[in-house]
């Protein structure tokens, strides 16, 4: 066991009727005076209690990768701060075996006036590396961050992308038994995120324990355990998938929808359009289109559009119909299937519309044939580009004639 958390609780006192975070001397003095002059009355500014964490227990073995998920204010950051000794618990106990390195924010300890090189040393030291260790890993860090050219430039002149890359590069090379990462991926572009996840996977394989907080569900793929927090308490779950399911909408799967009928338009008969939501929260959904051709069409374009609420086409997906493709559609019925990754969408309602073109570029009208789906995940940050990079798989097959 590398980490054992037992009945951990953390209480914060919040001043009522006060906007100030820190109480000033005046508050103390006036409270004291009030107590003197009206000892029996309840003082208005009396702090009230707020439990950021409530009786949290879990344990981790070497090599475990724990995903901590929950809404904002669920206590994720508080938990990480207690484990990394930044703030003390009110109750409970934590036993840690080994060195803990925590990256609670990308770029902590960076000083804008210092150069990239100086900052590697400074933030490395702050995150717990020794001078020799940093010197030994210096080249690796620079390689990973891809900023060789700007090593002697003050980081205040860096682009935010460069800054983030350098900051994560330092953290990724920490030698610690337990690595804590909070929302490190909330910043940076898709490629950066992917690189970070790959690096974390690599680190995880070395048998180190990782505690990882993110709102990006796709980024959890390398984790093997989940901890779902809600209002400071642990929601009981039996697996990571269950954890994610309970988080992304109380376990209810996304609603699917379908259209079926018979819509004849020239040589094409449209039978159905169907959206099937993913079976698991991290999985993919699918779109199925069934059509019949009354005659052979050599160069048919079949695909669909995904339109957002304001009517903008955000995806135009073609399943088949590359111009000049070899496929010749004979007379008959076909089913076109395509995977769709709900992870790429922001919260909202989307409509799938058919997009069928005849060889001459004549569009088949699809009036009224559309299905919609809704994406709702709490605090979704959306990963549009990433999914597009990996691409969707589309396929089609012949099905028994439906006419």
């Amino acid at each position, binding site marked *: 066991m590398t980490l054992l958390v037992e009945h951990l609780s953390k209480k914060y006192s919040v001043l009522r009727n006060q906007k100030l975070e*820190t*109480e000033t001397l005046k508050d103390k003095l006036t409270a004291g005076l009030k107590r003197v002059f009206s000892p029996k009355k309840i003082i208005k500014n009396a702090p009230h209690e707020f439990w950021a964490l409530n009786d949290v227990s879990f344990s981790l073995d070497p090599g475990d990768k724990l995903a901590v998920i929950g809404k904002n204010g669920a206590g994720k950051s508080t938990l990480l701060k*207690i484990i990394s000794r930044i703030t*003390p*618990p009110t109750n409970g106990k934590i*036993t840690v*075996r080994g060195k803990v390195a925590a990256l609670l924010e990308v770029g902590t300890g960076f000083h804008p006036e*210092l150069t990239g090189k100086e900052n590697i040393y400074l933030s490395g030291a*702050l995150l717990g590396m020794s001078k020799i260790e940093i010197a030994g890993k210096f080249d690796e860090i620079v390689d990973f961050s891809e900023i060789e050219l700007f090593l002697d430039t003050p980081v205040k002149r860096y682009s935010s992308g460069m800054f983030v890359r350098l900051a994560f590069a330092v953290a990724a090379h920490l030698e610690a038994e337990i690595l804590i990462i909070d929302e490190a991926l909330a910043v940076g572009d898709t490629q950066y995120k992917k690189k970070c996840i790959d690096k974390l996977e690599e680190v995880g394989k070395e048998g180190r324990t990782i505690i990882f907080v993110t709102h990006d569900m796709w980024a959890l793929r390398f984790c093997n355990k989940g901890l779902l927090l809600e209002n400071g308490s642990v929601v009981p779950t039996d697996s990571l998938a269950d954890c994610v399911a309970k988080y992304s909408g109380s376990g209810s799967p996304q609603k699917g929808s379908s259209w079926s009928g018979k819509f004849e338009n020239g040589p094409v008969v449209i039978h159905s359009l169907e959206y099937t939501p993913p079976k698991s929260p991290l999985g993919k959904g699918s779109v199925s289109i069934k059509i019949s051709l009354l005659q052979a069409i050599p160069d048919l374009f079949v695909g669909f559009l995904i339109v957002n609420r304001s009517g903008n086409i955000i995806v135009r997906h073609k399943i088949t119909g590359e111009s000049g493709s070899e496929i010749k559609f004979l007379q008959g019925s076909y089913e076109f299937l395509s995977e769709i990754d709900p992870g790429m969408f922001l919260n909202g309602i989307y409509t799938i519309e058919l997009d069928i073109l005849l060889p001459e570029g004549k569009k088949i009208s699809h009036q009224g044939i559309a299905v919609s789906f809704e994406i709702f995940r709490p605090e979704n940050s959306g990963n549009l580009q990433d999914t597009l990079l990996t691409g969707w798989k589309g396929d089609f097959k012949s099905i028994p004639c439906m006419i």
Partner: protein
Amino acid sequence: MLLIEAGKNKTNYVRELWQYRELLFFLTWRDLLVRYKQTAVGFLWHILKPFLLLITLTLVFGKLVHLGQDKGYPYVLLVITGLLPWQFFASTLSDCSESLIVNYQLITKIYFPRILLPISSMIITFIDFLITAGMLCILLVYYRFVPPKEIIFLPFFIIELLVLSFALGVWSAALNVRYRDCRQLVPFAIQFGLYISPVAFSGSIIPEKWRLLYHLNPMAGIIDGFRRTIIGGEESIYWPGQLVSICVIGIILYLGLTYYKHIEKFFADII
């Protein structure tokens, strides 16, 4: 194996400081580097500033204002022996008191012994102190002035100065985390302290019956000590007063460290 438990506060400061000695170096190095980034002469400022002060003092008090020439030492020496400990005290107090709150991003995101921050502030002000001390040596040579044999007590007063500055610095740093009022209070206290401490005048002008009371201001004892051991004067070190000063420093050290230790764990929560 590390145990984090509620309500336990058994920090071994000495061991932690040793563990984090490299970080202390890096924090000091950072503050030194940052101070002179985008300046043309860089680290030379460390020497230039006290040097310019010295020139000013010598010109004003040595050539223009003919004060204290009758005391057997130039007036400028009286001023600089007062300024040397006072400047260290004032800059340590103000830098230390800010050291925690200006680094709130570190405190809320990274664990390390928080005491490193005021200590690294003090190391930097101590470097300034040493450079000013070097200037003083140059001045002594210039005036061909040989310090009296009491100079052997000087290290004792330096330690007294370090302890007092550290204690007040740490105390005000911790208070500042809790009550930002401290931020307003410290500059005022420093200015006020300059008037009630014998920086620009000799402590011997205080009437005999008030001397002991006067030494309740620990800086009075320290400045007096610096002056007597470096340039001597008509009377030797006033030991009863020194004793009072030491007691006051002891009390400040105790109160300061106790308060610091009391709220240290909660810095990240209340900063």
